[in-house]
């Protein structure tokens, strides 16, 4: 059986609830992996697929909120659905601010669980797609020469070749050649494409690159 294209993680210290959650999510067709503690979850190798985390707010070894903070710190971006025994408003606010998808009070309806899981997986899928796209763009950007990067930064500001040649102290023919290489290396079909890419890469014409 091939690896699933998404996975739901459950961290809860109550074995019965852990099992019940796993079975319920299984019955709706979700792939689930369970953990009894935060430490166990952190110590495990996570598969590189879209995922979400169903997390009990109160765990014996550390609180769910602490785990959330720890994950954010170590750069693990995973949408979290919190489970709590009773609605604790300040706690929910804190969790939502830190990026929680949903805060479910036990006992919960399966519909709210399923919709929260679906939303979390969608969000993670989208985030992963964006992350991989960005990584791809960065790779392409890395192939540009310093001169080409200068040209790219000025092109996306909307300057004409002649203006850029003036800025960089060269001929517009040379700029045209640079521009063609940049478009090819970045895989941009049009100037509009290139501008979007630059936005994602947060490239703007930096004043420091301009000669005096």
């Amino acid at each position, binding site marked *: 059986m091939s690896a699933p294209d998404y996975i739901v993680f459950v961290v809860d210290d*109550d074995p*019965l*609830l852990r*099992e*019940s*959650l796993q*079975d*319920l999510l*299984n*019955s*709706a067709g979700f792939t689930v992996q369970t953990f009894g503690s935060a430490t166990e979850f952190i110590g495990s190798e996570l598969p590189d697929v879209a995922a979400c985390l169903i997390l009990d707010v*109160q*765990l*014996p070894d550390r*609180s769910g909120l602490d785990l959330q903070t720890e994950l954010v710190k170590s750069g693990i971006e995973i949408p979290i659905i919190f*489970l709590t*025994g*009773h609605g604790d408003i300040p706690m929910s606010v804190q969790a939502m601010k830190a990026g929680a998808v949903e805060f479910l*009070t*036990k*006992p*919960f*309806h*399966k519909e709210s*669980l399923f919709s929260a899981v679906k939303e979390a997986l969608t969000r993670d899928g989208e985030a992963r797609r964006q992350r991989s796209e960005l990584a791809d763009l960065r790779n392409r950007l890395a192939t540009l020469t310093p001169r080409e990067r200068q040209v790219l930064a000025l092109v996306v500001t909307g300057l004409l070749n002649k203006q850029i040649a003036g800025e960089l102290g060269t001929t517009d023919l040379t700029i045209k050649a640079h521009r063609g290489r940049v478009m090819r290396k970045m895989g941009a079909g049009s100037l509009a494409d290139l501008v979007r890419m630059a936005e994602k890469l947060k490239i703007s014409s930096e004043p420091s690159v301009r000669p005096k």
Partner: protein
Amino acid sequence: MDVQPGDVPEEVKRLQRCINDLVSLLALPAVWSGCEPSQIVHTLLAALQRMLQLDLVYVRLRGSGGEEPIEMARFGESQEQTVPPCEIGELFKRWLGAAPQEWPPLVRNPLGGQDLAIVPLGLGLQGEIGEIVAGSERADFPRQTERLILSVAANQASIGLQGARILSEQKHVAGELDRRVAQRTAELGAANEELRQEIADRKRAEEDLRNTQAELAHLSRVMTVGELAASIAHEVSQPLASIIASGDSCAAWLSSEPPNLERARAAIGRVTQAATQASEIVRRIRALFKKTAAGTTSVNVNAVIEDAVSLLRHETQRHNISLLTELDTRVPVVRADRVQLQQVILNLVMNAIESTASVDPERRRLVIQSGLSNPGELRVAVKDSGPGIEAQQAEKLFAPFFTTKPQGIGMGLPISRSIIEAHGGRLWAENNEPHGAVFQFVLPAELRRE
């Protein structure tokens, strides 16, 4: 001397009578034994009057110990009238108590008629008992034999009266003793009755106190449960979440094509398991709310501690406190009211949680220990890592209405202590090492292990 029968000279006859009279007089003390002085005097007067044909015989006995003197008189048969003895006493007043030689030989007859020749005699060695005065109208009174009889009679009377006085004193002493015994008995009876009343009052007061304490214990239990409401809600919602999730998945497995009976069955199994957990939680809570004590039973303290810990698990997690139990499996069974014991443990742990929650999260640590302290004595200790106890607060902690909590009523510790003391144990507090406080109690074990 040749004396014919029938022709006995008068002198001899008188001597014979005298001897007879003396013999009679010598027998008198035996007759008087156990008699009152007045009876003695009465017989003495009668005997003397009969023997000596006296016209007047008068006896005055000094009253002993502040009593009135006794006066009695007897008159000769020839006298036609009598006067009360006190009049005779009045007549003799000026000589009474004086030596016999100071008396006049003749006195006026108080009944009228000729003057009386009198013989005064003291009764007792120094006349301390009284006096006897014999009088006769006869000019030759007293003859020698008559004087002899009178003095023997006075001696005999002294002996008899002395005996009577001793007897009467003894009777008096015995009577006094009886009276005192009766009085003391009555006093004791009254004191006893008073004591009985006090005991009854005290019993009633103790009963009232017990009722009030029971009320307070119940109140504080309800308040504790109120404080625990969030934890209890959490505890119950946990199995409920399992029940609902497993119920939903069971339905899903049943309606899938084809139905997955195996997984549906497993889900139902979890429903049952979780429902059992929930009802166990409800049982524990209900036990806490129970108003009337279930009475003493054999209780395993470790089980009570585990119950309390499971009710408080959420509280410790909420405050990030690590809770450790070190329960000695060899602890003896105790005779106790399970609900009350649980209340004490719950109370101590709640206090410990509150004080521990005020220190740095890394330091928040709580240990509950059970074990044997002395042989036949069980010890339970709740150790926290809070700020500890200030010296001046150590005993105040157990005073009613002393509290450091904003919502506390200050009855938790006094009630806990009174519960433990009612079970024959002790509850006290001291500081923990290196920081925090230890609240611990000991209880007598039900049976020594063989």
